[in-house]
């Protein structure tokens, strides 16, 4: 898979403060790329550089094989975290204006707007002023503005904040549909569950440095804990525990189960899962046996607190 965006050794300083320290990223074409990091990690600085709002002090950005240059603004759609539109301008005029800024002609912009307004069921809003709309409604308009010019690369900064669950779902479906149509999406968020759900690649930035990058599944493998959740019905709990503690590290686990079973979290160490299973089956009836996959949340917390 070729990459749509390459960030190469980008450094950005504000006075003495280093916002990005030699950060390199590769965003594959057609992926949904999660850009993670705690507040103040440098995500917004990076996004601003990709959007050519600011320039890096050193390093370069390659967009679709070319060095980033002013004409590329029309290939990028950006939904900033802090949303805002002209509050006294009418919705339709505002969308036309912002679309024309991205290089669309007025006619094209009108056509696209009709399509999107129809699609999101907001046709009646054309002549309303933004100040008459609710926050969520304004966010929808902003989403439309962001995708209107059919950008190859979409950058969403916290796209779901401010939406109710129903509308968040609408937007999520639209994001997935855009991906199907071939767009690449960079997704900056603190909401780990949406990363889990949507992203196939992630990168984690912390204190101006990139700490992790890769396919989500590879990253998870890398953070594999070799730990299993086990549910077991046993008559001889003491014997079972004796056997287990000989070879493994054992802790309490909690998961939903229909049985009144003993719930354990077992770290394998150097052993294989089969050895654990053998030990377990000798002492009782196994009702639950699942490898514990690290969640993005766990990876995030672990990486940030270890660094």
């Amino acid at each position, binding site marked *: 898979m070729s990459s749509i965006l390459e960030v190469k050794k980008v450094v950005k300083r*504000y*006075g003495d403060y280093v916002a990005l320290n030699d950060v390199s990223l590769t965003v594959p074409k057609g992926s949904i790329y999660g850009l993670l990091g705690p507040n103040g990690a440098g995500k917004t600085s990076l996004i*601003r550089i990709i*959007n*050519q*709002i*600011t320039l890096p002090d050193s390093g370069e950005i390659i967009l679709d094989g070319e060095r980033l240059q002013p004409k590329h*603004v029309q290939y*990028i759609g*950006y939904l*900033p975290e*802090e*949303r*805002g*539109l*002209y*509050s*006294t*301008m009418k919705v339709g005029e505002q969308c036309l*204006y*912002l679309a*024309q*800024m*991205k*290089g669309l002609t007025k006619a094209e912009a009108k056509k696209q707007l009709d399509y999107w307004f129809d699609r999101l069921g907001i046709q009646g809003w054309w002549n309303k002023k933004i100040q008459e709309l609710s926050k969520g409604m304004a966010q929808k308009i*902003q989403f439309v*503005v*962001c995708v209107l010019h059919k950008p190859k690369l979409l950058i969403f900064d916290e796209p779901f904040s401010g939406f109710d669950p129903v509308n968040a779902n609408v937007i999520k479906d639209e994001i997935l549909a855009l991906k199907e149509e071939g767009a690449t999406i960079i997704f900056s968020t603190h909401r780990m569950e949406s990363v889990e759900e949507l992203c196939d690649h992630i990168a984690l930035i912390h204190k101006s440095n990139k700490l992790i990058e890769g396919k989500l599944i590879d990253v998870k493998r890398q953070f594999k804990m070799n730990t299993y959740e086990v549910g077991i019905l046993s008559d001889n709990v003491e014997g079972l525990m004796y056997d287990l503690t000989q070879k493994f590290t054992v802790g309490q686990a909690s998961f939903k189960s229909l049985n009144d079973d003993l719930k354990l979290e077992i770290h394998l160490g150097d052993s294989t899962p089969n050895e654990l299973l053998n030990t377990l089956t000798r002492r009782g009836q196994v009702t639950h046996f699942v490898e514990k996959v690290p969640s993005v949340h766990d990876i995030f917390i672990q990486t940030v607190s270890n660094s």
Partner: protein
Amino acid sequence: MSIISLIIKREFIAKVRNKSFIVMTFLSPLLFVGIAVFVGYLSSMKADTKHIAIHDETGLFVNEFISKNSKESEYKYIDLTLMDVKFLKDSIAKDSYEGLLYIPKVANVKELENKIQFISNNSPSIVFVEKTQNIIAHKLTETNLEMAHLDTLAIKNAESQVNINLTKATGEVSVKGLNEIKIAIGGLFGYLIMMFIIIYGNMVMRSVIEEKTNRIVEIIISSVKPFQLMMGKIIGTSLAGILQFLIWVIIGLVLMFAASMFFGVDMGPTTNIPPELMHNAQQEFAGTAQMYIKELWNLPIASILIGFVIYFIGGYFLYSSFYAAIGAAVDNQTDSQQFLLPIIMPLMLSVYVGFFTVINDPHGTIAVVFSMIPLTSPIVMLMRIPFGVPWWQIAISVSLLFASFFAVVLFASKIYRIGILMYGKKPTWKELYRWLKY
């Protein structure tokens, strides 16, 4: 359509559609005329008649005062020489009279020069004191002349009254009041340009703050350069200002035409009217009004209007770059006060210089210097234009103005570029200086 013209168009439409723009454009000329009429009415209103008691022990002056009494005069003099001075003083304290003019008996009239008293509860107006002193001095002089056995009548006849006829080198005859008209027009336009700079500069600042606080600026500058956005904003807003001014000019011209029709002035040059005729015309009020309107037409209206537009554009561009930078540096309007003060100062200074110096001596050194300095030239030069300014001075002043505009825009756009992406705390002067170097 290029992006910058898109921005200009949006800013222009946003300003012009604004209700306050419409209200200001059409209401303020009415308000202005209304205030002018009101002030005129107030100053023409007569104050209550004030009674002044005169106790003249010399008997020399009382008739001079009594003879000045008429229905219209503000002061009415009453001869109370026969009454006791002490009693009169008491009645002043009881407010029976506005004041008492006490002229004591003296051996030699010469002593009167500093022995006359005026006793009152409230301190009298300067005009009244001067007038009274004049009357007494005049009479005293006459008395002195008589005592020196000089023929006062002959001296009186020998005194002459001079009336200088003002004529320009081009041969036009001017009315006496013309200088006042020039002062009024110059002052009006100077003041107008200050108001325009402040009002439209503030508009630019507000619009920058709006974009910054609702964060739309991030979307926009991901498509355009901050410099383009800033310039588009400044130009678009200035067009709204020029439109407003043009509307006022049209309203003003229509009013002048209407007034001309009403008083039956023909709009040709004044040269073909002989001075005698003009003098006669001045006798009646309608004639005077006619002269004034005629003089208005004879003012360099074109240079004033063109000057206004050029100096408005230059001055406004210069100042609104500051305003834009300030708007970018702060998060809300309250924070902007600290930075606005140094901007308002030169504007105030120019108005003061205009009203105190230009009016006294339109072509003096101070007036000329301040009409060259870019921060003050828009106002000061505009006040000078009605008096006729050599073209080379205007050329220098305009080039300086526009040159400094380009310099200021470079600095302002640096602050603007950094400022619009900075949220949170209000920056200090030191930080603004640092932004210049990023």
